[in-house]
Structures are given as C-alpha cells and as structure tokens.
C-alpha cells in the first residue's frame, strides 16, 4: 500500500500546495494510487528529487503530489549486455555507485546527481557536459514502464539496445515533464567506465575564440567527451575539454590539442575536476536559470543575446556547451521587467535559427511577465492531441508544458 500522508511544505510545486502526498513503494502501488487518483479526478504532479521542479509553468491545479523516492531499486542489471533496468526514484548517484564496481556507468551527468532521480532526469531532459559525446537521455534510454493517467501500466521499448518494434514511447516521454504519464521504470544502455581521463583548459577566450578553438578541435578529429566554456568575472571564457578513453588515446589527444593551441593547460589529478566543479556551481547559480539553444556556428550572436539577460541579474553566470549550441544562464533576479525584456529580445535573436530560450527556474515576478517556454512550437496542435489521448481529463501536471498543455 502506498504511503499516503498530509502534505508538508516540501510538497509544494512552484508555490502550489497539494491536498495529499502519496509515496508508492512499488509499481503495483503506483498503479493502484494512480487509479484511485483517477477516480477522484485529482490533478497530480510527479516529483523525483525535485531538482527540476521549477522547469516549465506552475501547475494550473494541484490535488496530489506523487513522490517516486520509494521506487528506488535496481530491477535488473546485466553487465555483459550493458543494460540496467531501474525504478524511477533511484538517484543518478546511487545508480552510478551500483554500476561502478562493474566498470560501467550511465553516460549522463545531469546537475545534482545526489538528488536527481532517473525518472526526473528523463522527464525533464536533464543533462550535463558529457552530452557532447554520449547524447542526452533520449540517446541512452531503451525501455520504459509508464503508469498512465488512468492507472494502466504500459511498456515501450525493451531491454535490448537495438529494437524498432512498436512506436518509441521511451523517447517520446523524454522531456514530457510528467504530463503524459508516470515514468515508473527506465531501462538504459550503459557504457564502460573509461580507463583514463584528462582535461585541457584554456583561459581568457572571447566567444569567437571559444567557437574557433572548438571547431579546430573537431576538425583535427579529436573527440572530447565533454566541452564547456565558463564565463569568468572579466567576461572572458574558460574553455574546458575533457578526454576519456584508454590511456594512450587520452594522452595523444591532449598532446595534440595542446599542440593546436599552446595556451592550453593540461589538468590531471585533483586539478582535473576543478573546472567541472566550477561548471556545476555556475549551472546551479541563482533564482533565475535559463537554457538557450542555438546553431553552433552562431555562438557569438547567441552569447551576446544571453549576456544581455545575465547582465540584468545579480551575480550572473553563463556556461556554454559550444559543440551542442547550448547556453545556460543564471543569476539573482533584481528587476523582473529588465530581465523579462532581455529574455524577449534574446528569443527574437535566437528564433530565426530555430533556437529557443527556456526558463528552468524563475521567481513568480518574472513568470508573470514571460512565458517559461517562449513561442508555441509549430506542432502545438499535435502535442495537444497527444496529451488528450494519454490524459483526456488533463490531470497530469496540467499547464506545466509548452502552450499551457
């Protein structure tokens, strides 16, 4: 039986407090709870580690919060097949701790791994700098168990990496923010833990230099596992590239990168982790956080647009993933109108390149002025129909997704 309790302060979602909190301890309990909530006509938000709860709009209604924290077990780990099936509430860090002794990992490094859960990361499409090499959650998920709004349990994908049987529910659920169903279990493909790892860092770069050096690195056929540029206090960027693999390969790649640009510094041992720890801190900074997407070749223009946003914030922070065309901006809200205008201007700049700027966190004062998602996507009507098919009464995370879905 699910633990059902009166809500506490920690159960609020973007300022909305539910009437009840439920914590199922198994798939069966989750399905049972969902059926009961369906019968009640209750609107529900699913909560994992709560690290991305501020992404998207506040729910229009909130009767119940369903926590996945008791769904925290490994269902199956087949090391020789490099797959793991895990319940949605297990944290990324706990999963990695289980996998490491087998020389394996989930090649995904979202922020706050000690709190972020498997299901939450999938639902929010959370990722870190390793996306450079290994892709995002949609590139690593191979199977999913879903509890629908009506309490029906459905599976998609499977336990083998290569599988085209049926429609791709696992990938469809990525980034759906709990609005299409409860992600109860996830199957991932795994990667080997690298034997060696080294980072090369370049300080004092302009955005144009970040782009040029990144491009030169890729043109030289080097294959960094992670690339991030962190804005320093003087407005210049510190570009960090991490190489992973076998020792001779990592050595050769870092040597060649340093030969390409002598300004670089090879970081090893304890120093190696320093830029990445700084990266984590910058990405977590502030009560306003935004993600901008742009074409990699238009990096300078995108940086100017996003800098105009961070300039309105207190202690503004900016992180770039130059190979992916992604920027993370953060800081403390000072004047909502100024930040709101800068966001609108940045969106206008990014729009022609099919880019976007999405708010991952924002105080209510800013939310009152700007839509967290920006322009509605061209396929909004199909998205609405999909929502109606899977959640006809609009009870799952109502209003959280783009276009008020």
């Amino acid at each position, binding site marked *: 039986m699910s633990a059902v309790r009166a809500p506490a302060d920690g159960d609020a979602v973007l300022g909305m407090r539910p009437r009840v909190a439920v914590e199922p301890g198994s798939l069966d309990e989750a399905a049972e709870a969902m059926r009961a909530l369906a019968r009640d006509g209750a609107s529900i938000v699913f909560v994992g580690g709560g690290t991305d709860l501020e992404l998207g709009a506040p729910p229009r209604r909130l*009767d119940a919060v369903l926590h996945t924290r008791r769904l925290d077990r490994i269902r199956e780990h087949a090391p020789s097949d490099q797959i793991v099936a895990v319940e949605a509430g297990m944290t990324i860090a706990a999963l990695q701790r289980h996998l490491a002794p087998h020389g394996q990992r989930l090649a995904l490094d979202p922020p706050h791994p000690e709190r972020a859960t498997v299901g939450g990361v999938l639902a929010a499409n959370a990722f870190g700098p390793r996306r450079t090499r290994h892709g995002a959650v949609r590139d690593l998920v191979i199977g999913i168990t879903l509890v629908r709004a009506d309490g*029906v349990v459905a599976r998609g994908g499977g336990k083998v990496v290569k599988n085209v049987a049926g429609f791709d529910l696992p990938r469809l659920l990525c980034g759906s923010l709990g609005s299409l169903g409860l992600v109860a279990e996830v199957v991932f493909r795994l990667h080997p833990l690298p034997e060696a790892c080294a980072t090369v860092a370049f300080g004092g770069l302009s955005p144009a230099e970040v782009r040029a050096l990144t491009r030169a690195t890729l043109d030289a056929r080097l294959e960094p596992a992670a690339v991030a540029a962190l804005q320093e206090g003087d407005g210049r960027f510190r570009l960090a590239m991490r190489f992973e693999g076998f020792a001779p390969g990592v050595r050769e790649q870092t040597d060649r990168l340093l030969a390409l640009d002598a300004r670089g510094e090879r970081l090893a041992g304890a120093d190696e982790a320093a830029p990445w720890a700084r990266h984590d801190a910058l990405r977590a900074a502030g009560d306003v956080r935004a993600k901008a997407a742009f074409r990699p070749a238009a990096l300078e223009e995108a940086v100017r647009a996003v800098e105009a946003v961070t300039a309105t914030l207190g202690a503004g922070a900016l992180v770039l993933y130059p190979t992916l065309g992604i920027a993370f901006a953060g800081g403390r809200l000072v004047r909502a109108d100024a930040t709101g205008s800068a966001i609108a201007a940045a969106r206008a700049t990014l729009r022609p390149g099919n880019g976007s700027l999405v708010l991952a966190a924002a105080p209510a004062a800013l939310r009152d002025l700007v839509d967290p998602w920006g322009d509605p996507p061209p396929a909004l009507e*199909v998205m609405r*129909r999909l929502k109606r098919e899977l959640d006809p009464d609009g009870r799952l995370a109502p209003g959280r997704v783009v276009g008020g879905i």
Partner: protein
Amino acid sequence: MTGPGAEGEGGVRRDGRASQGVARRLAEIVGPRNVISDPAELLVYEGDGLQHGRVRPELVVLPGSTEEVAAVVRVAREANVPLVPRGSGTGLSGGARPVPGCAVLSLSRMRRILELDPENGWARVEPGVINLDVSRAVATAGFYYAPDPSSQSVCSIGGNVAENSGGAHCLKYGFTTNHVLAARVVLSDGSVVDLGGPAADAPGYDLLAALVGSEGMLGVVTEVTVRLLRKPETTRTFFATFPSTDEAGAAVSGIIAAGILPAAIEMMDRLAIVAAKAATGLDWPDVGAALLMDADGPHAEVEHVSARAIEIARAAGALEVRVPRDEAERQLMWKGRKSAFAAVGRISPSYLVEDGVIPRSEIARVLRDIGRLAEEAGLRVANVFHAGDGNLHPLVLYDARVPGEEERAARLGGEILRLCIKYGGSITGEHGVGAEKAAYMAEQFGPDDLDTMQRVRCAFDGAALMNPGKVFPTPRLCGERPGPYRPHPAEVAGLAERW
C-alpha cells in the same frame, strides 16, 4: 485490413477504391505522368523487399513537393482512400505493402538535397534522397551521415526515417533516430507541421521521437534534417576466424567486457561464410565462424583498441586474424559481409531474411537453439548478424519449388522470433514490424502497451488514413474510450478513503 466499401480501419467507412475520379483529381495536382494506374506499371509497387504477400494498389501517385503531398493527402482523405507511403521499396518487413483499394504515395521524385550545413552539423534533404548520397555530398568536407543499412546505396532517407533504420555501425553511432534533427510532415488532415529543429531541444513534446520508426503511420515526411558527423580520423579493421560461433561469441563478450566500444562487430557462421565466398570470390577459409570488427576514432585510441581486441580474439580461440593491408582490402572484407544476404542466393534457390534481437550475452545459446529448430524443420539457416548489439539476421534457406517448404520456412522464421522474445529481446532490430510481423507484436507487448502506442497514432492520424494494417495486430478505433474504471474493492476500502 480495409476492403472497398467495408467498415474500415478505425471505423472509417472507405467509400471504395481510389477511383477514376480520384485518379483525375490527383493528376491535376501532380500531373498526369505522375499518376500510375496501368496494371503492368503497378506491378513494381505491389510490395517492397519482401517477395511474398504482394497486393496490387489501385494507383500510385508521385508528388514532387510538400504542397503536392499535402494536396494529395487532402484528396485521399476526402475520398477515404488509404495512403501507403513508399521510399525506395527496399524494406524487408512489408512496411510499404499496399492494402486493397489504396493509393501508394511514392516519394521517389522528391530527391533534392536542399541545404548542406556541415559547420552546424546538418543537412536538409527531401525524403527520396538515397542514404549514401548524403554522405557523398559532404565527403569532400570531411563529413558523413552515420546510419548505414546494408541497402544504403539504394534506400531512401524517408524510408530510413519510417523504419528507424540501423546498420553495422549503429553499435557505436546509434540509429536513424539518433541522427534526425528535424522533419517536415504532412498529416492525414493535409496540414503541414515541422517537428524538431536544427538547434537542440525544441520546446514541447519530442514528437520527432515518435515519428522516427513509426513506419509511415503518423504522416508523410517531406523534408528531413539529418545530423552530419566528421569522418573519424582512423579506422582499423580485422577479420578473425573461429572453430565455431561459441568461440566467436566469447570473443565478442570479451571485447565488450574490456571496455571497448567497436564501431562495428559482425559475425558470420559457417553457412554465411560459404555463401559470401561463393558470391564475392573472397579467399576466406572454411571455418565455423568469423568476426569482422571496425574500431574508429582518434589515432592512438584506435590503435590501442584494435590491438587489444585482437589479443582478446586470439585468447578466445581465434584460428586466424587478418588485418587488411590497405583500404581496398578492407572494403573487400566489408563487401563480403554486406553481400551476405544476397550471397545466400548462391547456395539456396529461395531464402527468408529474419531480423530479431537478443541480449548479446545469449548469442551462443540462441544460435544453438536456432540450429536445433532448423534441424527439426529440416531446413538450413545461415546466420550473419550484428554481434555487438545482438541483432540476429537468420537466413532461412528453402526451395519454393518443393511443396510445403515455403510454409515450413515461414514457420521456422516465426519460431526464431519467439525465441528472441523468450530471451528478452525483440522481434525486430532494424527491419521494422511492417505487415509481416504485426501478429508477433501481441507476443512481445501486452494489450495495454499496444493500446498506448495506438493512442500516439490517434494523435497524429485519427482517421487511420496512413499506412493502415501495419505494426499493430488489431487496429484501435480512435476516440474510443473504455468504460468507466471500476475500482477494486480494496481500493475503495483502503487508499481511496484517505482523500
């Protein structure tokens, strides 16, 4: 399946075939030369790469633009004529098999490369563009398009999107779904929508994820933006022979366990080797099994990985390891592998290509089980497959002239698929479900799983106009709602009371 005038798919009444009137209206849209209704010319459209189960369409329409596709779809919608989209027709699951009365919508005239942007890592192409032509177009810039189905010199990008096509190098690089950034789609109501985009993480649901691999059931793709990758700096290949598939399977497991991610690792059994030799004249020895492995990436990494993999193969019992002297010899080795399907024609008058997936660690056991099933059926099975991801391609050899043999071959193929399901795998790794395997979907998935997938179809195509009869064993009526949920008494007494 929908017949003329019958109560059709999704309860939609099909008024009949794509009649003369429909043909006339379509000709006004695409021009009379681009509507085919001559029975002799329709022959080629009766099926795809599968030789059996052919159905003659009423007509074939070949639009030349997104606007024409949209207009064709609107006409078909008004007349309730089902549409069967078709690329190059190389599919191996009957995904482009017509249904009676339908119009086949061929995208083969839409074969322009619209835009190349290697610096941003993408190319925008029409769906009829041939897979390999994308790579050719960007080769001099040092780029390529990664998914490499064996048919890549003839199959189309649109078909690849429909089937989520794979290929030998998907082990490292992923499938079509990992390489499609955006698509323009004509929906069954004639509307045109853009999904995804060349910039990352377009806000909203990842409808592109649902589209890729939906086997033409969600809409007609009229433009595709694909990811371009830089060609790896170095590729190292080796070919190793083994006494049997047991040792070869152990070598694969050892290589993976050593933390190596090969670009591709392919296995052939004795019969497949014999066939490849007969077709290509390669001087491969007469052995129980062979592996062909590619490692690619930066130079030192690849040299290290390749040497280590060869050590592991030897330790696992390799009889011989051959390293190609040059690119020409490497290409020849791969030609041997890639021609293996067709090569089987040299040793058998007819054969059936299966496509199933098993957990990689079960390869040796499953191959023994397949051998036993083949023996019981009195048929031979050649195995050539993507060993790294457990994607089997058993080739069931038979003689269609011998009464009953074709049926026995089909039965054996089905038993092999059931074996894949039993071992926790899948009935298809890259060929798709199509018309051919729809019945097996109910064995791999439960009714609730299939119902959920069909709701996705309903969101895109509530009229069930697009490629009906594929993937799902039983069509679902869109808009159908199950009766009110009746709670279990325990819930009423327990959980439900609490709020």
